[in-house]
């Protein structure tokens, strides 16, 4: 009997409690709903539909909001708000095609293109200061953080062995930087002729495309000419991806069949200690000669030092994989935010693309010619084909040298020989970048 009563009591309490808590919920819910009612005026359904239709993307594209501002808070023309955005979205589709169907640097081109796609959405203002692309841009691009992090990863992936076993090939990596400075003169000359209006800073930022080094280009562009970042990054990465198309004709035109068949002496073995000391030596030189280049070279050598030390496999692994992948996503999206129509669809972009490919070709040619020049001196002969690898674009340019070499002589393996100038090219373009920065200090 007692147990039944206690059970009833328990049941009653449970029911009472649920009802009470439900009531509490109800009262809580009522409060905001009364608030809402205060601010929400009832509208006829037709008005709601027209109001909604006015906020669609179609209307925003066809009939742009006159008060709409761009990511920097400036007014922009109707073309850049409407048709320009549609054109840009189709350009990003073209970049998707290049990346997916043609395999052009998909790791960076896809995030950049998708970032560009997002940046051209009307109304949402994703690339604006409070949009997520804008936040990413300010997080790591406007302060040059992401290119530096990428450089650490690239350093961890680089093997200086081929360069150490044949040091003089570093000169080829230097000659290829002629693409940068030759184009700089070209860009300034164009400005003088009144064709375009590039300042010296802008011309420098454009010409660094000739270094064929994505992170360095972005680093310099954000420092010297952030308004051109989108075009410079897209030009830089798409030309790097087009190395197998751009370089071979130049290489073949400048070399004879006999030169292409030159066999190089086998590389000597490089001890682990040499590889370990090398990053420190180069960084020390950079400190003494050109401190402005140490952010890039320092990060690069940090990654390489971790790798060669052999005792921090976990950190090395993170730099080579996890970190560089994460940063690549952010870097790509951040650069993509600069593909907004009002910044990309300007006449300057066309000139940047044109100057970029000239810079690239001149760099390739200078590397090949330098190798031929070095062959005039006594000593071990150099196959001029590895000269083109002096533009950075690691390891694609070296692979191209190898491929062209094999076309002339199937037994001639140039890949490891070409890696020497290739990694020297990275150092060379970092030095060139340091010079440009120091000149504008």
């Amino acid at each position, binding site marked *: 009997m007692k147990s039944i009563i206690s059970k009833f009591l328990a049941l009653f309490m449970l029911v009472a409690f649920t009802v009470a808590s439900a009531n509490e919920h109800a009262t809580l819910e009522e409060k905001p709903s009364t608030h809402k009612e205060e601010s929400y005026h009832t509208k006829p359904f037709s008005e709601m539909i027209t109001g909604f239709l006015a906020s669609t993307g179609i209307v925003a594209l066809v009939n742009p909001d006159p008060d709409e501002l761009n990511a920097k808070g400036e007014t922009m023309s109707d073309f850049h708000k409407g048709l320009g955005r549609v054109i840009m979205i189709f350009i990003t589709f073209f970049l998707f095609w290049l990346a997916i169907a043609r395999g052009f640097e998909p790791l960076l081109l896809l995030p950049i293109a998708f970032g560009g796609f997002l940046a051209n959405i009307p109304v949402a203002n994703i690339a604006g200061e409070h949009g997520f692309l804008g936040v990413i841009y300010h997080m790591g691009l406007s302060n040059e953080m992401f290119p530096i992090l990428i450089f650490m990863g690239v350093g961890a992936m680089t093997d200086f062995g081929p360069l150490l076993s044949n040091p003089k090939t*570093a000169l080829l990596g230097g000659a290829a930087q002629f693409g940068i400075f030759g184009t700089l*003169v070209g860009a300034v000359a164009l400005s003088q002729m009144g064709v375009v209006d590039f300042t010296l800073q802008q011309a420098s930022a454009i010409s660094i495309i000739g270094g064929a080094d994505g992170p360095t280009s972005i680093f310099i562009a954000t420092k010297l000419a952030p308004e051109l970042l989108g075009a410079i990054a897209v030009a830089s990465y798409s030309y790097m991806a087009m190395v197998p198309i751009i370089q071979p004709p130049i290489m073949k035109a400048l070399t004879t069949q006999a030169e292409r068949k030159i066999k190089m002496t086998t590389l000597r073995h490089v*001890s682990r200690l040499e590889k370990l000391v090398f990053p420190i030596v180069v960084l020390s030189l950079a400190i003494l000669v050109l401190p402005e280049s140490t952010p890039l070279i320092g990060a690069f050598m940090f990654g390489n030092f971790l790798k060669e030390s052999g005792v921090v496999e976990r950190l090395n692994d993170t730099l080579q994989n996890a970190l560089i992948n994460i940063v690549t996503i952010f870097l790509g999206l951040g650069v993509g935010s600069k593909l907004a129509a009002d910044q990309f669809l300007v006449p300057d972009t066309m000139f940047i693309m044109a100057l970029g490919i000239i810079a690239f070709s001149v760099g390739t040619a200078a590397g090949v010619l330098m190798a031929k020049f070095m062959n005039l001196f006594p000593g071990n002969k150099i196959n001029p084909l590895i000269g083109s690898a002096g533009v950075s674009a690691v390891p694609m340019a070296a692979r191209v040298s190898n491929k062209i070499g094999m076309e002339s002589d199937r037994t001639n393996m140039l890949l490891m020989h070409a890696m020497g100038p290739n990694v020297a090219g990275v150092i060379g373009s970092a030095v060139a970048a340091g010079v440009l920065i120091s000149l504008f200090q």
Partner: protein
Amino acid sequence: MHKGNLMETNLVIEGFKFMGLGMGTVFVFLGIMIVAMNIMSTIIHKFFPEPQPKASTSAPSSNAKKQDNNKKIVAAITAAIKHHREG
């Protein structure tokens, strides 16, 4: 107009100056780097001759030598026994 023209002319000269300084620095840097690399390699080969491979190979190699010796001894003994039995 005249002044603007003058400034623009200066700009191209400026470009050439950049080129001279830039290429100069790049080559000087890489040149010093090549010299430094050669010096470094010479020093390392002279004073630290392949410490890692030697350290790692010397231990197994001495072991291997011992094993080789043992094998030779075993072979000699078996040959001697064979010879003795046959003889």
